[in-house]
């Protein structure tokens, strides 16, 4: 048998859009496998939010709860869940950057695999990773006394908001990973994503901030996401934060998708 006569006739021409979807699925499978085997990264992504939650509930909680009213753990958990999602999603920047600096990007480009499929693979695995770490963080939250009054719609809404936020942050992180030159620099996005929730209503009510900071906190995208999450989980009125959260996430997603695609094409590794 001639050696290169490998199962002939199996490569079929695909339409552009079909190829993108199929490649995105293949790349997602790859990234999920890689993620699930990088145990240290999984542990860090869970440890950080859990530690922060414990710090806020047990160290600062006593001092803060006078301003939030009710049980502080119920106030802070939505913020911690969001911080966990942001922190986990930000890791996408490093993963994308490592691919762009490695040999794989040349192979992919020479095989005509497009940027959207490559980034989608990273984003899907990022969301999957985040769902797992969010569940663990949520489990710890229940252990330390978090209780929800949410009905089924509230739960579904909360899950939806979180997924949407993870998606938006992960895709935005990809843009950052495509933009910077090294994995170390890409790691800087985690810092940003960890800091941003502090200037919001995640840990303390916005009303307690100095007035100049209040303006920032009230109008940055993380605040409506947290407010929606808190309202949904604690069965409180949603107000207009629901729509604002959806609009922010959708906007970030659209801009990031376009930017990532352009950057992927421009970038010569």
């Amino acid at each position: 048998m001639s050696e290169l006569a490998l199962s002939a006739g199996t490569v079929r021409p695909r339409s552009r859009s079909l190829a993108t979807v199929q490649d995105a699925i293949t790349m997602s499978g790859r990234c999920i496998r890689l993620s699930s085997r990088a145990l240290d990264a999984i542990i860090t992504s869970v440890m950080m939010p859990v530690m922060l939650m414990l710090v806020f509930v047990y160290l600062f909680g006593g001092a803060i709860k006078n301003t939030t009213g009710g049980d502080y753990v119920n106030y802070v958990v939505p913020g911690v869940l969001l911080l966990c999602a942001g922190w986990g999603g930000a890791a996408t920047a490093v993963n994308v950057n490592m691919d762009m600096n490695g040999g794989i990007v040349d192979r992919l480009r020479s095989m005509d695999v497009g940027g959207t499929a490559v980034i989608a693979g990273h984003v899907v695995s990022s969301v999957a990773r985040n769902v797992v770490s969010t569940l663990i963080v949520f489990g710890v939250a229940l252990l330390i006394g978090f209780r929800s009054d949410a009905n089924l719609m509230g739960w579904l809404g909360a899950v939806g908001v979180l997924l949407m936020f993870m998606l938006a942050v992960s895709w935005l992180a990809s843009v950052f990973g495509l933009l910077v030159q090294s994995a170390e620099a890409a790691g800087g996005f985690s810092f940003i994503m960890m800091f941003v929730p502090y200037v919001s209503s995640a840990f303390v009510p916005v009303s307690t901030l100095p007035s100049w900071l209040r303006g920032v906190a009230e109008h940055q995208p993380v605040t409506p996401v947290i407010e929606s999450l808190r309202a949904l989980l604690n069965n409180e009125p949603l107000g207009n934060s629901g729509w604002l959260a959806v609009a922010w996430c959708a906007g970030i997603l659209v801009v990031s998708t376009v930017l990532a695609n352009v950057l992927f094409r421009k970038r010569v590794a």
Partner: protein
Amino acid sequence: MSGNWAVEAAGLRKSYGKIDVLAGIDLKVPAASVFSLLGPNGAGKTTTVRILSTLLRADGGQARVGGFDVDRQQRDVRRIISLTGQSASVDQLQTGEENLRMTASLAGVSRRDAKRRAQELLERFDLAEAGNRRVATYSGGMRRRLDLAAGLVGRPSVIFLDEPTTGLDPRSRRSMWDVITGLLGEGVTIFLTTQYLEEADQLADSVAVLDGGRVVAEGAPAELKRRVAGQRLDLVFGDDAGYDEGLRLLPGRISTEDRARLTIGVPTDGSAAQVRSLLDEIDPQARLVSSFSVHTATLDDVFLALTGRPAQSGQNENSNETDKETAGV
């Protein structure tokens, strides 16, 4: 431009700032042959491969691969080529089989066929037993073979290999050569770059020598070697006076000189007859030359012979210079 060329390039130019990486190169590679682009680091080999494999746009000139224009028919070119670059394109945290199946899927092979093809390639590249192990546990040579295998899942007709053996030990290099030779006879065209004359000699039907962004010589390896002489005879003199005498006696024949080591290199075919007659000629009383050794010609010798000057930049770090040595007196 047309005809039966798998790869043809005319006047390819590329600069970064003021540095001309490619200063107008012409290449013609017949279909179903092995072509080697030979040159030191920084000669422009990788840039050429990247332009031909559509990853980089040339500043000037044009190129066709499989008859398709690399600039205007990018997708068509990508459908028929594969590129195995210098840095690994396989994932350390996936097994060999997973890497191959993933690449096969990306090449448009159906799920079921991807599995079969992965198995075929693993067996063929002597990786069947390692197929279920993560690539992180592979040796350098195994990793390169897997990388090459991953490039073949889509059944490309033009295969680009950018320095496939750089950094490998001699044994892995030889097994890589066997693998590459094994690809022939299927009608595929192989375009490989290398820093090693010996590698081009072993594998290629035709060679182009690239230096400073220009093709300085091309032809079959045998032709090139005739122009370069396959071997170099290093004569070690007993003292400075002898060394000077040697310089005086060998005008126009010296390819390397090293006063610190009292050594003069002369091209030779390596035959005993030639070595003996040379020694008889310059040192009939056997008092000047204290020892000698015969080396395979290095890229340095080729460059010296072709361009009249040493090759540019530090290309010697990983050249296999004293690969074959025969001890002297």
